[in-house]
């Protein structure tokens, strides 16, 4: 039963030997811009790369998800999915050229999630080098429309349309090595936009200032009482507004996220924020609007589920400390559908969503070694309940 653990040193050694192929895939795929809703070119590149590496079936599905299937030897077995979201937060016009040194790869989007997509493209070659075949079909997919307003639509659609049983899934994130996610919080993300109507912009006294109005909204949100149990949090993570220092701001916005262990609590707090927005709308006579961007239900794979235990053992054998936090990724969609799944991180990095984003090359070798080990275990049923 411990074959997959004993094989880890060989996996690490063999993967290090083909690191140039892996880095090439990260660079060649990652240098193609793929902001959410504009992932087509990167999807085509990924499918082409998978095809070049002799993946049995390669296709871009009706929703734009690039999918590759490595056919298994057992007809009866369900498929195992390996997933790395394709889209990035970076803009189309940003310079996507990557830099590589002997230690790091740096460039826009590399740590979220281009390195993981490059690794996904390399998996057929990695399995070949490791001389691994599986009874289950291995489905390699980089779902589109995962981030922000995409609201994980790509993976939702793919799972809805998938014709056969699915045994389990491994979701890949570029960083951080040691990450082991097996549950997700309930979550709603929203934006509140405030804009001052044109007729109020004519310079008369007491013109409303959109930034000050948004400030009122923030203060009201901060006044909401949050329970300690179920654990609940509101994060105001984005803000923008105004034109220049000396002008009254005609527009402003905030983006926020409500997270909780309870679906009900998230819904209630969203409703409270809705009331706050309505109230301020009336008192300031401005146009202020609340929009829901995305939402997820709380999902959970028990910490003693065989898949979680197996992933923990692998990390321990690799001498990497496991860090378990909730994750709002494709993981929650799999778990919602009753499919055992985990999210793992592949390497260490810095400046995830900023200029200067980078990942380290050497730790990635261990990070990648988790994948064949997990697949071996899952394929042999070690992760079935």
């Amino acid at each position, binding site marked *: 039963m411990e074959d997959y653990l004993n094989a880890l040193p060989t996996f690490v050694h063999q993967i290090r030997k083909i690191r*140039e192929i892996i880095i*090439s895939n990260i660079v*060649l795929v990652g240098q193609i811009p793929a902001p959410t809703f504009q992932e087509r070119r990167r999807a085509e590149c990924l499918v082409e790369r998978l095809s070049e590496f002799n993946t049995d079936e390669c296709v871009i599905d009706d929703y734009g998800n690039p999918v590759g299937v490595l056919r298994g030897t057992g007809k009866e077995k369900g498929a195992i999915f390996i997933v790395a979201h394709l889209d990035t937060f970076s803009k189309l016009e940003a310079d996507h050229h*990557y830099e*590589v040194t*002997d230690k790091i790869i740096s460039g826009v989007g590399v740590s979220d999630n281009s390195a993981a997509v490059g690794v996904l493209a390399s998996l057929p070659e990695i399995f070949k080098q490791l001389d691994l075949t599986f009874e289950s079909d291995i489905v390699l997919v980089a779902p589109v429309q995962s981030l922000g307003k995409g609201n994980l639509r790509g993976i939702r659609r793919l799972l809805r349309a998938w014709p056969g049983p699915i045994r389990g899934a491994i979701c890949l994130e570029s960083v951080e090595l040691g990450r082991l996610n097996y549950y997700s919080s309930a979550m709603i993300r929203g934006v509140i936009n405030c804009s001052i109507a044109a007729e109020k912009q004519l310079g008369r006294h007491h013109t409303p200032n959109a930034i000050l109005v948004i400030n009122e909204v923030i203060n009201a949100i901060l006044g909401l009482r949050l329970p300690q149990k179920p654990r609940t949090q509101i994060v105001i993570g984005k803000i923008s507004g105004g034109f220049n220092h000396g002008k009254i701001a005609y527009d402003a916005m905030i983006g926020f996220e409500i997270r909780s262990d309870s679906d009900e609590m998230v819904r209630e707090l969203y409703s409270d924020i809705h009331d706050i927005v309505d109230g301020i709308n009336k008192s300031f006579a401005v146009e202020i609007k609340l929009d829901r961007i995305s939402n997820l239900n709380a999902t959970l794979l028990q910490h003693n589920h065989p898949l979680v235990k197996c992933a923990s053992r692998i990390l321990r054998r690799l001498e990497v400390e496991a860090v378990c936090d909730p994750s709002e990724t494709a993981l929650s969609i799999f778990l919602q559908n009753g499919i055992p799944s985990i999210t793992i991180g592949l390497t260490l990095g810095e400046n995830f969503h900023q*200029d200067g984003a980078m990942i380290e090359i050497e730790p990635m070798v261990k990070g990648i070694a988790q994948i064949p080990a997990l697949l071996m275990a899952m394929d042999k049923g070690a992760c079935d309940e």
Partner: protein
Amino acid sequence: MNEKWIDTNTFHHSEFKDIGRLVAAKNEKNLSISLCLPTLNEERTIAKEIVIMKSELMTRYPLLDEIVVIDSGSTDDTRKIARSYGVTVYQADDILPQMEKFKGKGENLWKALYVTRGDIIIYIDADIKNIHHRFAYGLLGPLLLGDRIRFTKAFYDRPIAIGQNKLRPTGGGRVTELVTRPLFSMFMPDMTQFLQPLSGEYAGYRSIFEKIPFHIGYGVETGMLIDIHRKWGLDVMAQVDLDRRVHKNQDTKALGRMAFVIIKTFLNRMETLERMRIQQQIHDEMIQYQLVRERLKPENYLLEQHERPPMIEIPEYRQKFTRTAAGAKVPL
């Protein structure tokens, strides 16, 4: 003027994307191929070039037999990074050390002939931000799939990187349009069909490169084109569209110095070919002016012309290489 050349000898890299076919042709002809990357402080780009070329054209497809970095004395981590990816790295000064030492890209390309072993040598600049293996297989395609072409040269769209995260979509090739093309139009109109005669990427048979002199600096491309044209004619040459190439921007004054060297190389060749007689000494100094505290001050740059003779004339080279029955050269 041979106006048909541009139609018959211009290719697109996509015609050669079946790399398996190129490998088969290479094996059938019993050839070996060396990739040479000349460097000077290229720590930001060298690893990416090596990694992509090695993984795509050595590990996955055995098209290249070796990758060799020839460095002009980088003061950054270029050599260390290159070595970490398992390629052979030389300092140019360490090759043929008994000879007088020069610094320059052309010097590195010339010395690469001595240390590489390929029957075909491909030269690619090490400062390309959007490097892709098409830069190599595109240039090799015409050499491998036919028997006529012995030398290929790249052309491309050339956006230039201007600072962090910004690209200017047009530009580059300014020296070509303002200097080289006018000169070719006046004296060698056939050569105007090369869309980017100064491009830094080219490939050819050793039997060609070893028989021509190499200018040690910016004049290497101009001199090479003229010499190959003179010795073997236009028909052995081809140009390949490699699509897009993103590289570092150079300021106008630096381009001015580049133009100086290219004009000098051109005039030198015209004189050698007895197409022109220059009746005065041509100076080695480029004089540029800079405004310092409201006064214009001259800046003098010494841009000497140095040229290496054809490598075949170097006794050490002749000793190291011998001719096989097929005409290819292999190291002893």
